[in-house]
């Protein structure tokens, strides 16, 4: 990336911080509702220094990793089933899209009533958040395998399971990677929804805790952490992986 782009981005954030500081100094909002950037920064430092935010982050990542792994596994199985079987797709494909359209926070009350106010309920919500989007993408991935690949492979004597694993699986990998990236994004959102209503530990729980104790600086601080992690993981891990596969497959120059 060109350095001028980074200059623009840094200038933008400095201007934003300056406006924030200006609004704070105007005294229009009470300080308890509108802390200055420095206080938010301090709250973040304190949170990391005394370990509460570190613990919350670790707990959140634990929920996320377990939930995402399950979502990817389940989503792949459902997606392959719908992608390969026309019967299954005609029967259940539409409902999968319906399930996908349900915001994950809606599952929280159900999870709590079903499982209880604990970490398993949070993981359950994360799984639901990621599974459907994963399944839909895997289904698309399988449908988008170029038919000429399959024809060519068949003329070379491939059929059945070897055809699936040697041709259809690698051919659908680019879409599969997009699926994983989206599953991560949806799971991350679901995780925050689940944790907000849970009784900890976790980043979402810390956020609600900060609200209950009227610590606006920590509320804003945690929102910033959530945003930073969401975008950094996407950019550094999933987008990179996806682009790497697409380039190798010749879909991206």
């Amino acid at each position, binding site marked *: 990336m060109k350095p001028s782009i980074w200059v623009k981005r840094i200038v933008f954030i400095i201007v934003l911080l300056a406006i924030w500081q200006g609004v704070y100094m105007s005294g229009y909002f009470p300080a308890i509702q509108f802390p200055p950037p420095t206080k938010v920064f301090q709250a973040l430092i304190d949170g990391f220094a005394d370990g509460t935010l570190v613990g919350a982050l670790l707990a959140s990542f634990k929920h996320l990793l377990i939930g995402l792994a399950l979502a990817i596994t389940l989503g792949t199985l459902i997606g392959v089933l719908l992608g390969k079987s026309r019967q299954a797709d005609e029967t259940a494909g539409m409902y999968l899209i319906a399930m996908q359209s349900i915001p994950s926070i809606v599952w929280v009350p159900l999870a709590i009533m079903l499982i209880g106010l604990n970490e398993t309920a949070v993981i359950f919500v994360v799984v639901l958040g990621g599974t459907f989007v994963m399944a839909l993408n895997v289904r698309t991935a399988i449908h988008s395998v*170029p038919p*000429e*690949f399959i*024809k*060519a*492979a*068949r*003329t*070379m*004597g491939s*059929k059945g399971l070897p055809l699936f694993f*040697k*041709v259809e699986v*690698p*051919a659908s*990998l680019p879409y599969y990677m997009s699926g994983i990236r989206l599953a991560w994004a949806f799971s991350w959102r679901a995780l925050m929804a689940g944790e907000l209503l849970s009784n900890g530990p976790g980043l979402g729980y810390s956020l609600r805790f900060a609200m209950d104790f009227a610590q606006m600086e920590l509320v804003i601080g945690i929102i910033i952490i959530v945003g930073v992690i969401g975008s950094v993981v996407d950019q550094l891990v999933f987008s990179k992986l996806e682009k790497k596969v697409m380039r*190798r*497959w*010749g*879909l991206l120059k």
Partner: protein
Amino acid sequence: MFLQMNEVAKRFDAHEVFSGINLSIEKNQFVSILGPSGCGKSTLLSMVAGLEDVTEGTLSLGGEKILQPGTDRGMVFQQPALFPWLTVKDNVTFPLKADHSKREKEQLAAKYLKMVHLTRFKDAYPHELSGGMQQRVAIARALAMDPKVLLMDEPFGALDEQTRHILHDELMKIFDETKKTILFVTHSIQEAIKLSDRVIVMGTRPGRIIADFPIDMDRPRERDDKKVIEMEKNIMALLEDEIKKVMKEELDYEAKHLG
């Protein structure tokens, strides 16, 4: 006869593509199937490949009935259909079965890549090659499994003119070297005359064979050769009626539905 078609017909639901196709093709011959779009020539080739069901009649290769795809028939499509996740070499060895040792595979890949002059690109990925080079890899891949017959479905149709001519010459060399039986589908009269030992002309609506003749001319055949021009004219006349028929049908349809 080596490749035999008896009373072959193809229907898609109520639509009949062709019927009553009878053909006998000898070993080591280069046979072109020439015809306007819609005559079913590609469908017929797919049936030989075993990719399409046969509605009626039988096809057999070397005395064995064709029921499904098999490594005794290599196919090259209009699209190279190379696997983008494999290197050129791995694409060529893809059809080789597990009973080949790794060294044998390497040797076979080297042999056929040399034949298509792509030795230098054995470790490249398909998207790093031009369209013509990709199609040469596809030819090497089809040859690597040592098929009894090579099926080619408008293999040079998507290439530019110059590349096409270069590949014609390469294909002729490969044909000389390997002495494979080649069944070649095209809509280009020139291409058919330039390459083939025998040209089968198909008509459309309904699809059927309207002419079948040998080409006894020395290769390479130049475009401005008198005999070539003569033959081109003859085939053009044969096909003109077919194309007119399609045009008339389309115009009648327009007149009926828009007039």
